[in-house]
């Protein structure tokens, strides 16, 4: 019996000693993160789903209502009003911002300007400005009383620049968002451009390719992955729009309704209207729509990359 554990059994024993403990140590390293993650990500999501399936009434208490809350949201004009507004915002603001980001990244990468470091950090700087401070500063600049808009109108002697009027308000919000994130996206795209091997440009230049052709056939494909990421995050940001309109609301209370964006509506439903069940259903609907569009963008981006 005791003669058996000599040569043949030693390797499995050694393997067990080397592998097994490490398997579970890995779990210990990940556990603290996972515990918090489960508590503040999975927990609230699960709780929101749970809430969205119930209805609390003054008489009768809480009862299970199935998908009724979802139907209520989908039949709510206020919800569609906000959803249409953020969709419009998305279709106009995101392409405009990314055009600035791509242009700036291409110019930085061309190395045909001086002061690259200065421009890089200047354009990125707005990203560091806290969102609330950014809205306050722009809100004051937009103002008639002591803002730049007021200064310009005084100089022209007429009310020509009126960012805080009903017609221009969404543009004014788009400008704040563009200002905050154009530089951030520029740096992401610029980093992607830097990974293109220099030989590729040299070869293209030797073949007599114009700068435009190099941009179209080498540089744009090189940043496609980074661009898809930027588009997805911009879509998410647009659909979740809250800070800018809600802070601006204190400056122009009459122009921004409580359902100006779906997220503001959810906030007002749960905090002012005490309709937490409806608010939870609304949050989930917006989350599903956002995820679906982001997924479609990613699929399309990848499919074109394969061509």
């Amino acid at each position, binding site marked *: 019996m005791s003669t058996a554990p000599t040569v043949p059994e030693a390797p499995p024993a050694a393997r067990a000693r080397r592998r097994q403990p490490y398997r579970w140590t890995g779990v210990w390293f990940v556990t603290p993160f996972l515990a918090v993650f489960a508590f503040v*990500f999975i927990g609230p999501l699960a709780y*929101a789903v749970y809430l969205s399936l119930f209805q609390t009434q003054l008489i009768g208490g809480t009862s299970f209502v199935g998908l009724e809350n979802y139907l209520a949201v989908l039949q709510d004009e206020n919800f569609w009003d906000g959803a249409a507004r953020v969709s419009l915002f998305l279709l106009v603001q995101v392409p405009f911002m990314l055009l600035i980001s791509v242009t700036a990244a291409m110019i930085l990468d061309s190395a045909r300007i001086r002061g690259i470091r200065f421009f890089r950090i200047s354009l990125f700087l*707005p990203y560091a400005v806290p969102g609330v401070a950014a809205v306050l500063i722009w809100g004051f600049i937009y103002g008639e009383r002591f803002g730049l808009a007021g200064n310009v109108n005084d100089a022209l002697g007429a009310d020509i620049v009126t960012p805080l009027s009903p017609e221009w308000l969404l543009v004014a919000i788009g400008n704040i968002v563009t200002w905050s994130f154009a530089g951030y996206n520029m740096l992401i795209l610029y980093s992607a451009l830097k990974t293109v091997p220099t030989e590729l440009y040299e070869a293209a230049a030797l073949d007599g390719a114009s700068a435009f052709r190099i941009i179209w056939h080498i540089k744009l494909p090189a940043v496609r992955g980074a661009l898809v990421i930027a588009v997805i995050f911009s879509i998410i940001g647009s659909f979740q729009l809250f800070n800018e309109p809600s802070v601006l609301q204190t400056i122009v209370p009459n122009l921004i309704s409580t359902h100006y964006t779906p*997220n503001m509506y959810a906030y007002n439903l749960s905090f002012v209207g005490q309709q937490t069940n409806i*608010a939870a259903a609304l*949050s989930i609907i917006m989350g599903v729509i956002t995820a679906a569009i982001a997924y479609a963008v990613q699929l399309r981006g990848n499919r074109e990359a394969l061509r």
Partner: protein
Amino acid sequence: MTAYPSLDTAAAVQPVDRRSRTERPKQRRRSGQRPSIALTVVMICFAVYALLPLVWMLINSTKTYEGLLGSFGLWFADDFALFQNIGEVLTRDDGIYVRWFLNTIVYVIAGAGGATVLSALGGYGMAKYTFPGKKVIFAVILGAIAIPGTALAVPTFLMFSSLSMTNTMASVIVPALASPFGFYLMWIFAREVPTEVIEAARMDGSSELRTFFTIALPMMAPGLVTVFLFDVVATWNNYFLPLIMLRSDELFPLSVGLQAWNLEAQGIQGGAVYHLVITASLLTVIPIVIAFLALQRFWQNGLSAGSVKG
């Protein structure tokens, strides 16, 4: 190159290093090309756009309320009242602004610091060990990167209020502790730690945790700073979550406090504090901008790691 030579050497270990090697010959080759005036003009326009609001804020924080109303926005008023304004901001309402500033520091250190530690541990565990369910867990965390804080804020509030956790410092700190993006970045940086070094430490009888702290963590230092910076900015700028979680103004961070003052300024009797809102905004922006400028290199680390491998 920069005023921070120690950072240069630290960053040299990391993934960016590969790119900077390809970048150098490109710039050398291109320096032969003449700078383009058209491109320079375009970039100057972009830079003016980016900097103008900050310049406006800087100039107008030097004005009294009367000066604000009576002078051109992009030039100084007759009296220079910056220090007077700062004094007023710091002493108003028994120095509540200082209180908000200290709260923000607490939220940043506990929230961003804790998030960085958890990300580093988790990213390392994910990169250097195999265990059951690893792939599924990783996929779930990556998917969570796309969930914005604003979408989670209301559900988190509802859950926290059913647990009676709202209106506490913990209600702002705990949600900040889990940063899927930080986790992902730390995983990228942890992968660069050579497995042979870890194996060697194991052979010498070092415990797994000790190996992590004494060998792996120093090698992940540049990544650690990058992740910490991202988390600091996220926490410093966080608005929606503290807005709904906190009721007592002595718990507010700067972002929510600023908006509280703005609300007051918009009120009927409040008009005369606009200049203080502007100065308070300036004081809120300055620390984070300094952190930004001083540690630029680490931003680029994180962004390039995220954009290339993501």
